[in-house]
Every structure is written in C-alpha cells, then in structure tokens.
C-alpha cells in the first residue's frame, strides 16, 4: 500500500528526516513514535503530499506519488496536527469544501457527508461555524474531513490531541474499524498507551532517523516503554557528548 524509500528532508537548515524507509500494508495500523522534533510531523506531511521530500521516493499502490501528486487526492486522508480549519465556514461547509477538493460531487458528496456526520456524531454541530468549535470538536471535524472520501491510507498527526477520554476511546474504535475495512492507518503520537491500544506496528523516530520498526504486543507496554526511553536517552547522550 505505502512504501517509503530513503526519504530525506531538511527543515530550518537541519535534517528533519534522514533516509527513512518504511512499508505499510492494507489494514495495518502503524504508530509513529518519537519525542518532539523527532521528525514525525515532517514525515506525515510528506506522505500526505503537503511537503516535498528532498530525496527518496513514496510509492502508493505501486505508483510514484511524487510523480502523480493527484494520487493523494484520491487515496489519502490527512488530519494534520491541531486540525486547521476555515473559521468562517460551518462544519457542513467544511465537509463540502473537502469533498469538492477530493473530487466528490452531487449525490455522492451528499451521501458521504451524511455518513460521516452520522458516524462522528456531528449532527448538532453541522451548522456551527468552525471558528467557535472547542478544540475537541475541531479535532473531530478534522477527522471527518480526512475520512470523507473513504481514503485507502489515513494519515493522522496526534489525533488524540484535546480529546476527552470518551472521545479517545471512540477514536480508537474508529481507527480499528477503518483498519478492519482495509484502510492502512499511520498515526503519530508521543503517547505510548495510544500505540499499544490501537497499533499493529510501531516505528520509533529519533532525530529524523528510524531507530525501531516492529510489531506491537498490546500486553507488552513495559517493553515498548523501555525501548522508547533507551532510544530517546541515547540521542540525548550523543548530543551531550557532541556538545
């Protein structure tokens, strides 16, 4: 489904992601773990098509995504960090705008909008302006926009941000539902519990490089935590030595 090969990108004069290679199959949920500044958001922005890599390739269903950026429109649903919205548009208008941008029109758009509004329980907010939504409601709307066109790959950047515990549980159910339907999901987080709760695989990024890529066992939270801290602290030690 998704194949990253030697992906690299510099940001603000320093390497944000270096030689990242990953493979994601249909129906898999991959958790991208890392401390702040590890390169998670940069990686997801490149996968979503919002940022061009300096080098490397991204293959989506066997097609070169960098050569055919319109593939992103069809295949990818992206929820960026902090769910950017147009404050002057209503929830319903947001879904329409995203639908038009993703090639949905007429009856198909109406059907998709109704389905996602029902699934994410957005009916009471449908006519409300995005500018007055709470952070949790904004996050739900962002998720609805990402899911509207039934993408084959769902890219979620810190999706549990600002959600209450009930909403977090609902989000986990939704992610598992999507995976069961064959959607590949890649989500970034710095919460280890999030990874053990919903992910099949975990990739740990540190200082822009992939340090670990393995299967997640939901009952092995302690082992994941140990690995994560070892990687995070090893980077700190290297930095301290270099200084």
């Amino acid at each position, binding site marked *: 489904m998704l194949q990253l090969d030697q992906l690299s*990108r510099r*940001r603000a004069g320093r390497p944000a992601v270096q030689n990242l290679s990953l493979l994601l199959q249909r129906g898999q949920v991959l958790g991208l773990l890392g401390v702040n500044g590890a390169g998670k958001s*940069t990686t997801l*922005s490149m996968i*979503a*098509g*919002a*940022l*061009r890599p300096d080098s490397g390739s991204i293959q989506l*269903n066997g*097609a070169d995504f960098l050569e055919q*950026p*319109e*593939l*992103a*429109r*069809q*295949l*990818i649903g*992206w929820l*960026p960090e*902090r769910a*950017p*919205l*147009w*404050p*002057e*548009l209503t929830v319903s*208008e947001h879904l329409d*705008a*995203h639908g*038009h*941008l*993703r*090639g949905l*029109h007429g009856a198909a758009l109406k059907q998709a909008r109704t389905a996602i509004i029902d699934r994410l329980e957005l009916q009471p907010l449908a006519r409300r302006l995005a500018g007055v939504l709470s952070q949790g409601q904004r996050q739900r709307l962002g998720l609805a926009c990402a899911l509207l066109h039934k993408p084959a790959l769902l890219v979620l950047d810190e999706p549990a941000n600002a959600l209450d515990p009930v909403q977090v549980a609902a989000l986990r159910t939704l992610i598992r539902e999507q995976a069961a339907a064959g959607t590949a999901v890649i989500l970034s987080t710095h919460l280890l519990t999030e990874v053990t709760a919903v992910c099949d695989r975990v990739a740990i990024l540190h200082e822009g490089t992939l340090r670990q890529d393995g299967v997640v066992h939901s009952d092995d939270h302690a082992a994941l935590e140990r690995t994560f801290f070892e990687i995070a602290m090893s980077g700190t030690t290297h930095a301290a030595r270099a200084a």
Partner: protein
Amino acid sequence: MSPVFVSPFAVTRLEWRRLLVRPLAWVLAALTLAWLAWNFTLLLGNFLAGQIQRAALPDGPGFVDLVAVPLLAQLAQLAFMVVPLITMSVLAGERRNGTLPLLFAAGVPASRIVLGKYLAVLGWLLLWLALTLAMPLALMHATHFDWGKLASATLGLVLMLAALGALGVACSAFASHPAIAAAAALVIALALWGVNLGAQMAGINDGAINWLAMSTHLQSLLRGLVSTTDIVWFVLLIVLALALATQRLVADKERG
C-alpha cells in the same frame, strides 16, 4: 486507478463562499455602494441643472460624460482601499489558519490555488462594478447614452479592478499577516498609479515613465479611447502578479 475529476473551480467556490460569509466584504460593499449612490444623485442633480445651457452646444458633454464616467472614476478611487481589504486574507489568511497545506495535500497545484482565489476575488469585484453601473444604466431609457464611451470606461474599470485584484493576491501570497498584505497592496497600487507624477510636474508628458503609470492607461480608457497598449499594460500586470504569487506558493510548498 482512474483519476477522479476535480472541478478547476473547487478553490474558486471555496474562496467565494468564504468571501460571502465574511462580514468585511458585506460592510465594504454596503458602505461603498451607499457612498456611490449618494454621489450619483449629486452628479445627476448637477447634470439636470445644466441641461438647458448644454442644449445650446451641439457636441456638448452628455449623460455618460457628466454622470456615468465620473461615477466610475469614483469607484476607481475607492478600489485602492477596497481591493486590498478584500484580497488581504486570500492567501495570508490561509497561511495563518494553517489551511494552505490542506490544499497542497489535495493535489491542487499552486497555479490553480492562485487562479482559483483570484477568480473568486474578481467575481466579487465585478459584482461590485455591476451594481455601480446599474445606477446610470437605470436611466438608459430616459436620456441619450453614448454606449461606446460607457463601454470603454467600463473596460477600463474591469481591467483596473482585475489588475488591483491580482496585485492584492500577490501581496497576500508574500505577506505573513493579512494586514501587511493590505498595506503592501495599497502602497504598491498607489505607487503604480502615480509613478509619473514627478515627471508630469517637470512637464514631461511622454516617455517610459508615463507608460509605467496606471493612471495613463486608465484615463485614456475613461475618455473613450481604447488602445491595445493600454489593454496590454493591464494584462501584463495581472500575469506578472499572478505568476509571482504562484512562485511564492511553490516556494512555500518546497519550504514546508
């Protein structure tokens, strides 16, 4: 996989919707149209008052010269303030909201984002012009109309609004804050308008500096003189401004 069809006007539709629900656009339209309507009644009053004297002149100025064209000239003056306020948020606002990457991620090329937003702004400006033109046109059956002169002046206004709109979109593409975009668009537009003022004060009424000034090209169109040079000047400015805005968005996407 067959590619899905995305309307080339998807961005235009989104921007148009945003323009329509923004109170600023309505307030500006209401205030400026009220001001123009008031001035229209004054111009009309003066025209009616001088009708008897003008009847003695066989080729004297008519309704279009004394009412319609001065009204359009006032619209042109207002445009220097209104257009930057309408265009300031089109791209700078997207950048501040963090919504620009959403458009990139939807596979919309930078050129289509710029063009889509420009067409929405142009639509609003042409509607504004049409509502202003409706005032003199309401009297078309009651007076003699010089249609050629009115068409020329209207063409001049369309080109001017289109050029100011493109300039505003370009400033919005380069600015980090909408207010900076508005200020930059105003200053650049005024500079383009009066770049030849010094030369004219020195008695130079010809030459390259006069060709550079927007006033030179608009005034001849308002006088009823349509020349290719004037049209080309406006088209060049529009193309240049939109190309710069596109380049800036491409750089934004590259930089991330």
